[in-house]
């Protein structure tokens, strides 16, 4: 059996997500997305003053009697899957079958409310839906807590999982177990949840559910007979999934007669209604008008509104042990509804639940407004977005070339891309995003520096802060344990790729007669930029990849300077592994050579470690740069061009005599798309 790995990291995402599969989905959902988008906006920004109407409707439903749902008739579960294995489709079907939403062809990714989720076919923000299901004459309350499929959003997954007792692990009958399936399985396994394997897409021509069943048996030690074979698209056997949820997943251990105790597992902010907290009630019950306390802050609030999410908010009079829902209690700031916090009745204090470890940023990138005049706008957009995503770390930063901006920390690359896309789509902000970097560490040897920093070990996020070798006893770089699952025809190529990325193989097993699972220890830095793209392209898209944090390892790191005619360009300083210094330096020199326009003198573009130049490109001097014709009719055009150049000149960054346009920095620093 494979070791159970502690996970708190992320997975590399990557472009393949945004290419083939996601786009396919975008096209399918084109019309729907727009319609639903609008609804979502209305909900989030109720500028259409629809709130009154909604309240009336809610009042009608206020009569829902939840008291019949004792804990033994409640099941809390989530669905986890590799991307595009059909998680959202299955969720849509479950919602339809239990009457939460009307049956319609339009129901596609009902729980994925963000545009970025629909665009990419992924779930970013966990959503919750309470389903009423009648099984053998009994009415059950099934709480489906949707989870982000991607381990970049692991913190969301673990939050959701903490409110569940079981998971549906979806595997595509055609593609079989993928890297993310493995990651997701261990997440659930570690949380000691009941795992119900579901093999989806059995209607596909190339579906091979038997093979997938044996993969599941081999990898996860779950008897193949336990797999439920379905087609979420056609609805085939979906009823069996609901039955299994009731039969196999244990009810929550929670007693209604205990004091009220609830876990805040998500929160969002609405300008009109304040903080909306999603809670799982672990004990007792809470009613409208109750006075509750946040264990974290010790502040008291009065419950104004509460209810179920079906998936739309559905007001009720109360929530009781085992139930999952939302609560609005006059909190004005999301920080008041800390995720992982415990809520209890003012009169009956309880011991707080363990909560969650705060998410740790593992990929950093600079974000700058395209134009400095957009700084304020971008700032408020970032503030608003981080309100609902506390996992993004924000630090002000400034670059001589790009102006004032921020260095943001993300859980992973997909997290970064999604954040950026949301900035652009939801806040209409155009940003320059620099190539991602990872947090390095240094063990200081200089007593003076140790005193200065207050510790022996320091984390270096910005290359400018990189301490000199002379004051450091050891540099450390973050490493991740990567899982690659691929058809065996590609193993040779993939092994070469991994070796070129300084990866160390830890494990290699056949999960069936054609598919191989390999585990490699990678320096994180080696996979943050283009690893996934290369992996996808050399395996014709068949290989899947996922990773989890594996701490830090000693590394021979150097600071790489970029020089223009001998003068260093501070904003291009990079930290690199010694073995990669040449390739990194050469690539940067080449990009600069293309990006800096020719000037009247020759420009040497060099990469150097200390005083040693390791790569060089030359930008040749102009020999001729004068417009051939300039007569009466040409003057206006010529003047316009020259004036533009003269204006641009004022904005150029001057390194010695070399004029470097902002575009050149953007081209070198930005992340390739």
């Amino acid at each position, binding site marked *: 059996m494979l070791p159970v790995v502690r996970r708190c990291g992320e997975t590399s995402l990557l472009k393949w997500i945004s290419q083939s599969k996601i786009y396919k989905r975008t096209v399918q959902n084109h019309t729907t997305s727009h319609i639903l988008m609008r609804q979502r906006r209305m909900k989030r920004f109720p500028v259409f003053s629809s709130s009154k109407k909604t309240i009336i409707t809610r009042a009608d439903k206020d009569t829902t009697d939840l008291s019949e749902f004792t804990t033994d008739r409640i099941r809390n579960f989530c669905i986890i899957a590799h991307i595009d294995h059909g998680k959202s489709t299955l969720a849509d079907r479950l919602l339809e079958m239990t009457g939460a939403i009307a049956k319609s062809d339009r129901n596609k990714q009902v729980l994925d409310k963000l545009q970025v989720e629909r665009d990419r076919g992924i779930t970013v923000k966990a959503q919750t839906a309470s389903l009423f299901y009648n099984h053998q004459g009994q009415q059950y309350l099934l709480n489906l807590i949707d989870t982000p499929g991607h381990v970049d959003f692991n913190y969301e997954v673990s939050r959701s999982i903490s409110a569940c007792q079981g998971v549906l692990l979806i595997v595509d009958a055609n593609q079989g177990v993928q890297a993310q399936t493995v990651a997701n399985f261990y997440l659930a396994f570690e949380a000691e949840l009941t795992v119900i394997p579901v093999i989806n897409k059995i209607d596909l021509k190339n579906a091979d559910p038997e093979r997938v069943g044996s993969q599941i048996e081999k990898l996860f030690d779950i008897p193949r007979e336990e797999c439920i074979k379905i087609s979420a698209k056609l609805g085939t056997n979906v009823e069996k999934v609901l039955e299994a949820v009731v039969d196999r997943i244990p009810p929550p251990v929670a007693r209604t007669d205990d004091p009220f105790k609830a876990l805040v597992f998500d929160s969002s902010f609405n300008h009109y209604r304040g903080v909306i907290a999603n809670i799982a009630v672990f004990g007792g019950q809470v009613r409208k008008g109750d006075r509750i306390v946040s264990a974290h802050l010790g502040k008291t609030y009065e419950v104004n509104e509460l209810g179920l999410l079906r998936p739309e908010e559905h007001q009720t009079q109360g929530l009781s042990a085992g139930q999952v829902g939302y609560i609005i209690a006059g909190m004005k700031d999301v920080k008041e509804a800390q995720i992982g916090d415990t809520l209890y009745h003012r009169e009956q204090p309880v011991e707080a639940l363990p909560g969650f470890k705060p998410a740790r940023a593992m990929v950093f990138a600079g974000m700058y407004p395209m134009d400095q005049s957009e700084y304020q706008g971008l700032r408020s957009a970032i503030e608003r977005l981080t309100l609902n995503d506390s996992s993004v770390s924000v630090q002000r930063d400034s670059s001589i070339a790009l102006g004032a901006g921020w260095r943001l920390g993300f859980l992973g690359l997909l997290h970064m891309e999604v954040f950026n896309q949301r900035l652009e789509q939801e806040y209409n902000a155009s940003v320059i995003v620099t190539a991602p970097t990872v947090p390095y560490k240094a063990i200081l040897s200089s007593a003076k520096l140790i005193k200065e920093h207050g510790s022996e070990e320091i984390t270096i996020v910005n290359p400018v802060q990189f301490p000199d070798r002379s004051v450091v006893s050891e540099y450390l770089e973050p490493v991740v344990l990567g899982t690659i699952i691929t058809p065996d025809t590609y193993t040779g190529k993939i092994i070469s790729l991994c070796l070129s990325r300084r990866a160390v193989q830890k494990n290699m097993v056949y999960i069936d007669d054609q598919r191989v699972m390999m585990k490699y220890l990678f320096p994180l830095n080696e996979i943050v930029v283009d690893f996934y793209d290369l992996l996808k392209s050399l395996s014709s898209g068949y290989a899947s990849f996922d990773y989890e944090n594996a701490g830090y390892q000693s590394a021979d790191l150097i600071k790489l300077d970029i020089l223009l005619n001998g003068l260093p360009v501070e904003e291009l300083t990079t930290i690199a592994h010694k073995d990669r210094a040449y390739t990194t330096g050469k690539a940067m020199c080449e990009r600069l050579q293309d990006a800096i326009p020719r*000037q*009247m*003198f020759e420009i040497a573009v060099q990469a150097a470690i200390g005083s040693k130049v390791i790569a060089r490109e030359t930008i*040749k001097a*102009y*020999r*001729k*740069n*004068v*417009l*051939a*014709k*300039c*007569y*009466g*009719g040409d*003057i*206006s055009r*010529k*003047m316009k061009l*020259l*004036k533009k*150049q*003269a204006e*641009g*000149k*004022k904005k150029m960054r001057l390194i010695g*005599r070399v004029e470097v346009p902002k575009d050149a920095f953007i081209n070198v620093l930005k992340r390739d798309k």
Partner: protein
Amino acid sequence: MFHRIRKMIRYAFRPAARALLSRDLCFLSDGTGGKLIEFDPSSGSADLSRQASLYVHWPYCLRRCTYCNFNKYIPRENRDDLMTECLQRETETLLQLSQVSSITSVFFGGGTPSLAQPSTIAAVLNTVSRQVKLSEKAEVTLEVNPTPVGMSKLEDFYHAGVNRFSIGVQSLQDEDLKLLGRDHSAHQALQTIEEARRLCPGRVSVDVMFGRPKQTVESWESELSELLKVCDDHVSLYQLTLERGTQLFKQVQRGEVTVPADDVTAEMYQCARRTLQQHGFQQYEVSNFARHSAVSHHNMSYWKGRQYIGVGPGAHGRFALLEEGGVTREARTQTLEPDVWMCEVQQRGHGTRRRIKLSHLELLEEVLVMGMRMTEGIHHKHWELFCPELGLYEIFGTSIEVQEFLQSGKLILDTRGLRCSWEGLALLDSMLPALLVELERQISPRLQKDYAADGKTEKTSIM
């Protein structure tokens, strides 16, 4: 038959030119001038607004050259008569608007102005001389496409008043002419040069193009020496520029055609400059070379920042208005499309589409940019004419960047004035932004002071 027509034209129009003399006398008796205006007009500031050159645009071509993005049209029907009428009318209008009393040169460009009837040229010239002084000696240039038809009309053009021909030879390689989409052969070009030289000895210019597809430095050198055997006293060299939207641009984009690299065209340019110098041609501007002082006066007046009036579809002008007291110069553009332009001229009496008042700084910027294209650069006296308040030394003397240009020998600032060195001229466009930044830095604070004093605003109007 032909002979008789020519004779008629001569009879009809030469007197018109001569009639100028009487106007000339009137002008002199006004007491406003006081001296006879020659080709290179004296540079008194009063003359700046009293004189102008005239550009007349003939927009039609028989076909589209693959590299050309100029304002030209392949006519669907012959509207030459109407065009002639409109050119005359617009000339009249613009001359009246300006406070010009003398036209120092006329240039018929295009398009293909050699497709126009000689009578059109005569009619426009006649219109000019009816209104203002047009000296018989004034340079009147016509661009010529060296086709047999073009050549056969040269004599008639001459009799219509043209005294200088600019011949679009472009290349002496038939294959290249084909690729460029030209409608003549190298042989026809040579014949046309010969005929033009017969009519206007010493006043024929040839245009040649380098940086053409497949061209090498060697082939360019031999082509140039071949040309030097037959050409007259003026040569214009143009580097082929790939203009967006042209057929050649697309061909290069698609990789069907390759043009020489930047370093190669730079070498072609330098090599041509040396060769022409060896043959007694003096470079007087970035692309223009003359022997025996046969410079183009018309083009010189652009580079010297003088006024010009542009007549015809898309033509540009720079002149001060009579009614506004002649203080500020306007940048004027005529309506682009010939049919629309003609319609406007007929219905509204003018074809001006856009007028922009040039600020003092903008005028100085143009004087600088255009002046630096000449090998003689900008003389102190010449600069003073436009900018009496601040000299060249004061403006450029303190700039670090300009100092670098001076020290590296690309720029010269001395008692004569500001100019490019031989090497620097090829790099002018890299130096101009720095010069413009410096000019603005020195002039703007002064302008703001003036602005605060008289509260004048700059006006832009679309007509």
